[in-house]
């Protein structure tokens, strides 16, 4: 009874934050405390409903193969019928829990973080809108609904990155994010259109049956194209190479935004899409290969850049890109379970890391360069403890969350492709190194005199604690409670730890942490000398491999060039035609004034010309008629 109620009212979960957005937007925009109260209330209610839904899923007969589906007709054009509704299966339940929990914690944190900002009301409105969009995306029943909320989520990202709209860098970053993800969205839209044209439906449940049948009959060639097009969306949204460039710049937004959107929830929308449409992707070996290698490459690539960056949030941004690469890698090698497990644990510890970074930045009065910080260990003990837990989690040390999820990914990779496994392991090493570097440089050493840092206020502290706890236990819980038995594709995955793989990665992480300690704390080897030794590599890494510059060059050459050409066409061809028409009229009129120069003789001449023509014609005609009648002349 309770389960049924929860499931049939799952659509309330996105609706409540949407109502919060409308209420705050119309009425309480200027009142910080009231806006915060409304947003947090609605988020809490959504969270409770999500708990209820999860309870319903865990206790009921719902599995990955038999989800709960509830939909209504949205609109109908000719023979195309588009529905909206809610689809609840264990994957949905997991996503609902993650999104609502992290969203709630971030909103509580924001009360403290945005306390001095006059635009706080607007901030809570946008956060609520984002929560509503993400939740709507997660419970989508078909590609159409998913695409609608996908775009909404992108919009919220734009609004929130550009929250400090009086800063040029923030505006530019928002534009960059929107345009880059737009490129991804376009590919996704093409894929969706192809699906609609080929199958006549976009419903996940229906396609689950139709697509494998189609592939069985016609082979994979056409569906590979569709799959690749569909995958372009996640490349943009989840920051895979080459559309990753917007994520580091998105750090211009306030830290709660970075924590919620660009770490825990929005960027995983791409991963979620691949998971949701896994029945399409898993049947296409070419696409799976692309996903796996792209994910692995992105993970490694982003990790190498993170080694040399200085602003604290930027390191975390590249770390996010790297971890997203891991999730894609897991999907590419065929393990939905590993990917989703890592998604869950990553949401917790990445949000934790970002919120700690926010606390540090605020305490240091907006200084973001880690080499200007130091010795915060004593000044901000709670933050330090939370950060350490986060770092340990992301490095994959037991018993923290990252250990279990990363082990599953590496295990899945090893089972399929050794090069990918090695790439993943190397990336794990690098991850541990740069995260330890971050921790050591920021919190260890001696604080500079006059450092203003103090521990943060209660609103910001408690979410950190909660997330730290989650980062610690979620891995254990997921492992022992049988994550793989609930969220899977194909066959339920048994939970087991391959001790060889797990052991290797743990050892490597410890080595990396030790290395970082030696370089940055014990100062046995100078970081500067190392950077000089690897001169070229260091420069490439520090400058993000010059990809942004390359894109600017492409834009200048093609977009601006095309613009210039089109401008020339507009100026000379189109205006030329219009002006030419006007001039033609002028010329014609000049010709016709020949007939009207005010001189009678001219008029008479023209008149007689006409007379001659008429008479000659009549003559000719009469001649013809008479010849026909027999030559009567």
């Amino acid at each position: 009874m309770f389960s049924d109620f929860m499931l049939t009212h799952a659509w309330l979960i996105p609706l409540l934050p949407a109502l919060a957005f409308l209420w705050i937007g119309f009425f309480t925009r200027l009142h910080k405390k009231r806006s915060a109260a409304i947003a947090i209330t609605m988020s809490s209610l959504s969270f409770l409903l999500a708990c209820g839904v999860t309870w319903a899923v865990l206790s009921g007969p719902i599995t990955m193969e038999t989800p709960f589906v509830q939909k209504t007709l949205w609109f109908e054009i000719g023979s195309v019928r588009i529905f909206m509704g809610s689809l609840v299966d264990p994957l949905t339940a997991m996503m609902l829990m993650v999104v609502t929990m992290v969203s709630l914690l971030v909103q509580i944190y924001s009360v403290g973080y945005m306390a001095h900002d006059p635009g706080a009301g607007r901030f809570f409105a946008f956060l609520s809108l984002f929560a509503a969009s993400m939740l709507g995306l997660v419970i989508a029943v078909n590609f159409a609904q998913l695409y609608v909320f996908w775009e909404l989520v992108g919009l919220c990202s734009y609004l929130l990155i550009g929250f400090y709209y009086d800063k040029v860098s923030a505006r530019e970053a928002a534009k960059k994010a929107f345009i880059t993800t737009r490129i991804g969205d376009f590919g996704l839209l093409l894929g969706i259109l192809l699906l609609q044209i080929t199958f006549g439906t976009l419903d996940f449940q229906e396609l689950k049956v139709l697509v494998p049948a189609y592939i069985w009959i016609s082979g994979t060639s056409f569906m590979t194209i569709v799959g690749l097009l569909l995958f372009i969306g996640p490349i943009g949204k989840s920051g895979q190479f080459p559309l990753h460039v917007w994520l580091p710049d998105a750090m211009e937004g306030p830290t709660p935004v970075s924590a919620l959107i660009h770490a825990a929830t929005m960027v995983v929308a791409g991963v979620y899409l691949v998971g949701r449409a896994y029945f399409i992707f898993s049947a296409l070996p070419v696409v799976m290969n692309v996903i796996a290698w792209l994910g692995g490459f992105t993970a490694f690539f982003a990790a190498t850049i993170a080694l040399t960056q200085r602003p604290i949030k930027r390191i975390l941004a590249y770390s996010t890109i790297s971890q997203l690469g891991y999730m894609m890698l897991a999907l590419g090698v065929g393990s939905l379970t590993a990917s989703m497990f890592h998604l869950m644990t990553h949401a917790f510890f990445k949000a934790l890391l970002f919120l700690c970074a926010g606390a540090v930045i605020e305490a240091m009065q907006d200084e973001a360069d880690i080499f200007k910080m130091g010795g915060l260990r004593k000044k901000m003990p709670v933050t330090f403890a939370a950060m350490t837990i986060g770092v340990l989690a992301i490095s994959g040390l037991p018993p923290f969350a990252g250990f279990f999820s990363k082990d599953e990914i590496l295990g899945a990779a090893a089972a399929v492709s050794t090069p990918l496994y090695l790439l993943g392991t190397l990336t794990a090493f690098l991850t541990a190194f740069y995260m330890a570097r971050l921790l050591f440089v920021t919190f260890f050493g001696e604080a500079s005199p006059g450092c203003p840092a103090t521990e943060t206020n209660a609103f910001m502290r408690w979410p950190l604690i909660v997330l730290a706890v989650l980062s610690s236990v979620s891995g254990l819980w997921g492992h022992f409670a049988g994550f793989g038995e609930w969220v899977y594709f194909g066959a339920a995955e048994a939970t087991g730890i391959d001790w060889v793989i797990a052991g290797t990665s743990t050892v490597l992480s410890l080595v990396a942490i030790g290395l970082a300690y030696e370089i940055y704390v014990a100062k046995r080897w100078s970081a500067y000398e190392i950077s000089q030794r690897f001169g070229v590599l260091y420069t490439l890494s520090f400058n993000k491999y010059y990809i942004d510059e390359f894109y600017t060059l492409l834009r200048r050459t093609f977009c601006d060039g095309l613009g210039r050409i089109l401008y020339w066409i507009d100026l000379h061809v189109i205006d030329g035609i219009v002006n030419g028409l006007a001039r033609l009229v002028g010329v014609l009129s000049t010709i016709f004034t020949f007939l009207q120069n005010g001189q009678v003789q001219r008029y008479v001449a023209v008149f007689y010309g006409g007379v001659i023509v008429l008479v000659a014609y009549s003559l000719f005609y009469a001649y013809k008629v008479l010849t026909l009648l027999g030559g009567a002349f």
Partner: protein
Amino acid sequence: MMSFVEMMHLALHVGLPHFLLLSAVLFAIGLFGLFTKKGIIAVLMCIELMLNAVNINFIAFNHYMPVTDLSGQLMALFSIAVAAAEVAIGLALAFRIYHDHHTVNVDDLNHLKG
């Protein structure tokens, strides 16, 4: 195409075509002068020529065609009367123009120029 005898016959046996041809020639000459001359008086003279050519046509038709009465000649009579009236007015106008503009050049009277 015709023998010399036939052409002679045609030329010497005067009939309607001769008069029509004469009228056409006079009319054409008048037309030529109408287009070519620059003075008002000269243009009016050419107009008179054309009117006379038309009168020849009327009378020739009246003489050579099987008609019942002298309508052709009457038409020519009326034409002469009207032409006389017209030439009177025309010359009065020419005089007036000369008085006001001190020119008889047709080209200078282009106030209707569009």
